């Protein structure tokens, strides 16, 4: 482990602005991963949907998931730059 690694870990531990951003990136990435799994689950369900009502419901759910994923990724990217 180099000095940079130690310093970046200390940054996180001491909860400086960079450290805070790094912790938030980890949290958002975890949430986005869960949303992606959820989206995949809805996609799979959609293929099996029998009624129009179920199809529309799943379409809406997928749409919301995608919007949330995009928001999460955008925020995480911005925070990643802040954390560097």
């Amino acid at each position, binding site marked *: 482990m180099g000095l940079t690694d130690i310093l970046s870990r200390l940054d996180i531990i001491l909860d400086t602005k960079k450290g805070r951003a790094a912790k938030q990136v980890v*949290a*958002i990435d975890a949430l986005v991963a869960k949303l992606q799994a959820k989206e995949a689950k809805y996609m799979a369900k959609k293929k099996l949907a029998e009624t129009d009502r179920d199809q529309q419901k799943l379409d809406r759910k997928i*749409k*919301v998931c*995608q919007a949330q994923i995009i928001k999460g990724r955008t925020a995480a990217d911005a925070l990643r730059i802040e954390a560097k």
Partner: protein
Amino acid sequence: MIKRIVLPAILAVLAFGFWISPNFKEIAAGVAIFLFGMIFLEDGFRAFTGGVLEKLLAKTTDKLWKAISFGIISTTVMQSSSLVSVITISFLSSGLIGLAAGIGIIFGANLGTTTGAWLIAGFGLKVKISAYAMPMLVFGIILVFQKSRNLKGIGYVLAGLGLLFLGIHHMKEGFEAFRETIDLTQFAVGGYLGLFLFAAIGIAATVIMQSSHATLVIIITALSVGQITYDNALALAIGANVGTTITAIIGAMSANHQGKRLAGAHLIFNMVTGLIAIAFIWQIIWLVDWISTSVGIAHDNYTLKLAVFHTIFNLIGVIVMAPFVNALVNFLERIIPSPVESIVETQFLNNSVMDFPETMLTAVRNEVFHLYDNAYRIIAHGINVHRQTIESDVVLEDELKSNKEIIRENVSQEYTRSIKSLHSAIIDFTGSTDLKLNAAYSGHLYDLRRASQRVVQAVKDAEHLQKNIDHYGASKNKAIRNEYNNIRINVARILRLIQQLRANDPDVDVFDLDDNKLAAKEARNATLRNIDKMIRKGQISGVMATSLMNDLSYSKSIISSLTRAAKILLGERNQDLKDGQNIIGLEDEEIQGLSQTGNT
């Protein structure tokens, strides 16, 4: 009346003692300094823990051995079983831990507190601890004046330890000088009479000083200079153990029924332990001698042997009582029954939770849930839906369209009775505690207050909605009846989703609140688009259309308020994940945008 007599009597006895004996004055001053140190130490740990202790405590609920271990460790570190008892009572009152876990912590605290005797007997009397006291006091007081809460806390702890050491030093000096003028062992009483007499003195001394530690220090220092016999010292230690329960009982007076049960458990445990110690005193003394010889404690080192005795009899108490924790819980629940659950009175907000930020937040959160439970019933009945329907698996669309039952709930009256007073109590409570908290906790508290306000707003909107729901929901006009049923379905959906989230249903998460909001938005847009068509076709009148548009607005407000409240109450508790959820969650404009786009 007794209070009026007791205090002047104590003061008079002390003044007389000071007048006739400077040595007694030194011992009494030592006790006073020691108790002052205890206050500093407890204040320090309260500030210093900053929620860490409470977070740890919250994790010791699943297993009895964990709870006992926590009690041992925390009391060993803080050297105050009283503080651990008070924190545990506040945890119970706030609903964060169960009674069995609380009892486990108290058992552990009893064992942990015996380390005090070891420290005093093994360290306090062997070295000149007053030499350590002075620098501790100086560093401590400097830190006490710092702005940082943590530094202030460390300062209080250091100053507290300094005062404890100084107090022990003065007690030791006083007893040593006392030995030259009077031999207290001439008042020694042997046999069981002495055992009961000195146990009673130990109880009285601890009740007056409210610190078993202080009593033990006096016992150990007096024993070290031969002013009391070993047998009488053991009896005093047993008495100190029983007397210490008074702190928990006083702490429980302002707590709810759970806190009172815990204080009861504490009293029972210490009484049983004390009785076992008295009944088997000779066997325990033999065991102490055997252990002392085995670990190399000299035969005449009575202070360390007292420490061994203190640990042994508390350990026996834990071993004897631990298998009966569930029976003890049942017994306490029977003799201190839960009050009839009131929907109009607060259940979790009381003075015992105010000193500890994490506990206080949990209590407020639980109280907002209590408020929500009332609101849930009122709103569900306001739209003529039973809660069983919402909590069942039935398809809401089918059930609500076929069921025309009107539930006679007076939303307006219920709002005044079970919402307004509770919300006011939450506002009053959070307003009075806000100043004691740091920024992070204040932020959480502010969020909870906002959630409470949102729940209230939802009920107020339901009050407006109810009249037309009742009127048009049962109308013979199919078009208007359908539209009002759609409103009912949308409101029922958010109620169902919140119940699912509360039940930790694996099929839903907080992000589904956005999906629900979009679904409601799309349904509302469809109705709004349909209104003109219905008027043109003569299916509804202008008056009906006006009512429908107003009520769509109320239903939108209910859904929006409950969504916001649910995000606060049911979102992640970890700050980083919570921030992440807030970032990812969709705003109203974004949901508006999604409602205007086509499907994927």
